[in-house]
Structure formats: structure tokens, C-alpha cells
């Protein structure tokens, strides 16, 4: 009794895609207001877990609770719960192309607020504001489909941040970004909400871990294999190597070839 209020409680969750198990007997708790990193190599189940947390997929067995309410198809059939949940939790997909389907950037960012039935004047104000904050106001009349990769990512992020969700789920937010866009995005996430919001980031990039997370969960083959603060996880070289988050990297110094652990996404 008296412990921290839980945002998400994941209890022995299994999830399968036809023949392939994506999550297996997965249990973890995420407290309110924490910044969490879901770490794992490709195919470890990070993206699936984010979709389960966002009420897009429903566990084959086990339970997922959001602030005490179990996330089930039955719950999402009720408009009241669905609107409340979508207002509170936002998901930025890894591939921005699937998230950008409106004729202009402005329409794209306005899509979510309109679905949640905000007043039209509020939608206009908030969309303009978020476009300016993300420094993409100049793109407002552009066709999202024709933007560069970094611009698409920013628009996808804006389309979720405009809702000002209390919980932000991010699927590989810095994947395929150039170094400047990468750095700007990390700064934005660190500053977003004054650090008071819950941010859950799925990534295999360890570079910015200590900036974006207070706590890490390491997944491997759909199972939780470790959890702890970033510095503790980063120190466990055996764990990182076992879960393919780092690998032995051979290179040449002078005439001598040697190897040392190499961090995914790192330039060093």
C-alpha cells in the first residue's frame, strides 16, 4: 500500500501474430510520470508492446490495465472510454508514412483534435501553435507525402503532441534521422511537458538513453529479461551483448585488427 500510482500494469501478457509469438508471459509495471525505455533488438516485441499499451492490439491472454482500467475490446467499444483514453495516450508510429494520410500538413495535425471533437477555433489555435513549436510552420500547406524523412517524422510527432497527451508512446522516434534532426528531436522530448509527462520510448539506440529514460525494460524474444535504471543497464555489457543491443565490432588500428563492443546507432 502507498506505492507509486501505476500508469500501466502488464500482467502475464501473451500476444501472437498467427504463427509467431510476439509477447510471451510479459509482466511489467510503469508508474505515473516516469520516462521509460523499452529496449530490444529488432523483433524483440517492443512495437507490439507499444500497440498493446495503446489499446490497438489486445492480449491473447493476461491483462493490461491503464490507471486501473483493463484495456479490452469491450472497453473501447464505449465512446466515453475510447475518447478519454485517446485523449490521454498518444502513439507515434515508427513509419511516419502510415501516420500521414491527410492532404496537407495542417489537416494532418488537425486530424486527431477533430476526431476528439475539439472546437474548431481551438483546433486552429493548437495546430498553429504546435507547428510553430516544432518549427514546421512553413510546411503547413505542404502535402505530407512529399516531405523529407525528417520532416515527416516531425509532422507525425506534431500530429500526436497537438493532443497534449499525458502519456506519449514513441516507436523508434529517431530511426533514420540525420544527426541534427536526431538531436533536435531528443531535445524536444526531454523538454516536452516540462518533464512531468509519461514518455515510453521503444528503441534499440542506446546513445540518448540517459536523456530520455529514468527506467529501462529490456525485451528479448517477447520476454522481459531485465529492468533497471539506464546507467545500470548500460553497465551490463553481457546483457547488452546477449540481447543484441551491442555486438563485437572488428576494426583496424594501425596494422592491428581488434574488436570491442559496438553500440547500435552509435557513431563511436
Amino acid at each position, binding site marked *: 500500500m502507498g506505492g507509486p500510482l501505476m500508469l500501466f500494469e502488464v500482467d502475464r501478457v501473451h500476444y501472437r501474430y498467427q504463427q509467431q509469438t510476439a509477447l510471451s508471459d510479459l509482466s511489467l509495471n510503469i508508474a505515473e510520470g516516469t520516462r521509460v525505455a523499452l529496449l530490444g533488438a529488432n523483433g524483440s516485441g517492443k512495437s507490439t508492446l507499444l500497440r498493446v499499451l495503446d489499446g490497438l492490439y489486445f492480449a491473447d491472454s493476461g491483462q493490461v490495465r491503464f490507471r486501473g482500467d483493463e484495456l479490452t475490446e469491450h472497453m473501447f467499444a464505449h465512446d466515453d472510454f*475510447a475518447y478519454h483514453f*485517446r485523449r490521454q495516450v498518444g502513439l507515434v508510429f515508427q513509419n511516419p508514412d502510415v*501516420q500521414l494520410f491527410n492532404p496537407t500538413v495542417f489537416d494532418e495535425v488537425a486530424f486527431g483534435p477533430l*476526431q476528439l*471533437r475539439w472546437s*474548431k477555433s481551438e483546433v486552429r489555435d493548437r495546430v498553429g501553435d504546435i507547428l510553430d513549436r516544432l518549427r514546421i510552420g512553413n510546411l503547413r500547406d505542404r502535402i505530407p507525402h512529399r516531405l523529407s524523412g525528417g520532416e515527416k517524422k516531425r509532422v507525425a510527432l506534431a500530429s500526436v503532441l497537438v493532443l497534449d497527451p499525458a502519456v506519449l508512446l514513441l516507436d523508434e522516434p529517431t530511426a533514420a534521422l540525420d544527426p541534427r534532426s536526431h538531436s533536435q528531436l531528443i531535445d524536444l522530448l526531454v523538454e516536452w511537458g516540462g518533464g512531468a509527462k509519461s514518455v515510453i520510448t521503444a528503441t534499440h539506440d542506446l546513445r540518448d538513453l540517459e536523456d530520455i529514460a529514468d527506467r529501462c525494460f529490456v525485451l528479448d524474444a517477447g520476454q522481459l529479461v531485465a529492468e533497471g535504471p539506464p546507467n545500470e543497464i548500460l553497465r551490463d555489457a553481457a546483457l547488452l551483448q546477449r540481447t543484441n543491443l551491442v555486438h563485437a565490432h572488428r576494426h583496424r588500428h594501425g596494422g592491428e585488427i581488434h574488436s570491442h563492443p559496438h553500440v547500435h546507432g552509435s557513431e563511436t
Partner: protein
Amino acid sequence: MSGSHVQRRGFVQSTIDTLYAAISRVMYAETLARGEGLLQGIDPRVKLAGLLAWILAAALSSKLWVIAALLAVAVSLALFSRVPLSVLAPVWTSALLFTGAIAIPALFLTPGTTALDMPNVGWRITHQGLASAAYLITRVETSGTIALVLVFTTPWTHILKSMRILRVPVIIVVVLGMTLRYILLLLETAREMFESRKSRMVGTLTSRDQRRLAIHGGGVLIAKAFQLSGEVFLAMQARGFRGEVYVLDEFSMTQRDWAALSLFAMLAAGAAWAGR
């Protein structure tokens, strides 16, 4: 390398070009719809109801000149709305080819008076057969043109919202709404697939290889379409989509809209009366 020589574009390159053109057409349609023009300024609900009434009048008319007159009015409206003929022409050609193919048997099988004998094969084309084919082709061309006028002068989201106002079931509106979203993604995917194929290709493909490539490409695209449909729908759900269409623009009827509605209704009623 000494100079350059002209190569045939080949199957892969021509497919890439076609896909680029298709993407450009989708973009162009939205640009035209949001631009200036006679119909662009009319309330989308008026356009949807009015133009549907014209399509109905064309389908029910039993007089060829009435259908042709509706076609002429639709083309004039397109021109006044800055929709160029070059946009309509490819659709006319496609409709003519497909409908023509369907109509050919009617030329020979419809009983009636002989219009033309084909002595070598012993077949004869009848006046009634010619009339049936002409009706079918003209109706399809007219309905297609009217539908294009609507699509090229009205943003897609406004058409969807108008459909909901006119009580079209949610499921139909959702399917139509997602169709446009997939088209762009699938066209892009197809283009990348063929560009990737081209980057690894040396020489030219035989006809058999071209057919195989087309079939494989089609299969991969269908599989990707299923995956994409799921992804895009999830992305829409994640931002609160529940089936209803909400857009920022308010629809409000002005005097000009009421006048347009009256004109649409009068023309539809006139066509129905003249074509009875």
C-alpha cells in the same frame, strides 16, 4: 563511354513512369479541388446531391440526345471550374475501351433491322444493336464525367463529410476514406519496388520475364496492401478515429449555393422529363 544512344524505355521503366504519373494525378486532383473555379466555390453537399441527381437522370433517360446534353453540360462545368480536358480525356478513353468491349456483343446479338452485313463471317450488325451500344457507352461516359467533375472540384474529405450528411452508411464512408490513403502509399511502394528492380537489372527483359515480374509485383503489392491497410487504420484509431468524418471547414449554405441547388435540380428534373 562514347556518346549516348537511345534505349527503349522497357517494361520496368514504363511501369515506373506510369506510377509517377498516377501519383501526380492524385496530387493534382486535390490541388484542383482546393483551387479557384466555378464549382469549387459551391457547397459540397449541393454538388454531391446535384451531380448524383444528374447521374440518375442519365441512367434513366431513354433518349440519347438527353444523355449527350448532360455530358456537354458536365464538360462545360469542368472547363469553367478549371478542370482541363487533358484530365478528363484519359478517363473517357478507358471508359470507351472497357464499355466498348462489353457492348460489342450487343451489336450482333440484339435482334432488329440490319444496319451492316459482314458477309465473310455471316454476322450482321442491327440498328437496335448499335443503339444499345451507343446508350451504354454514352451513359458510362456521362456518369464518369459527372463523377470526375465532383472529385476534381471537391476535396475528398468534404465529399466524405457530405456523404455522411446525406446518410450514407459509416462503413461505406470509412472504406472510401481509407481508399485514398492507401492509393498513395501503394503507388509509392510499387514505384520503389520497380525502381529497386531496375537498379539490379542489366539488359532488357523478355516478354515472359515481363509478365512474371508483373505477376510477382502484383502479388507482393496485394500482400503489402493488407499490411498497410492494418497499419494505416491503427494509426487512425490511435488518434481517435471512430468511423465518423470530421473536417475543419464548416459547411454553410449561401445564396449562391441555393441558386446552384435549384439549377442542379431543375436540370435533373428537365433531363428526367425530356428523357422519359
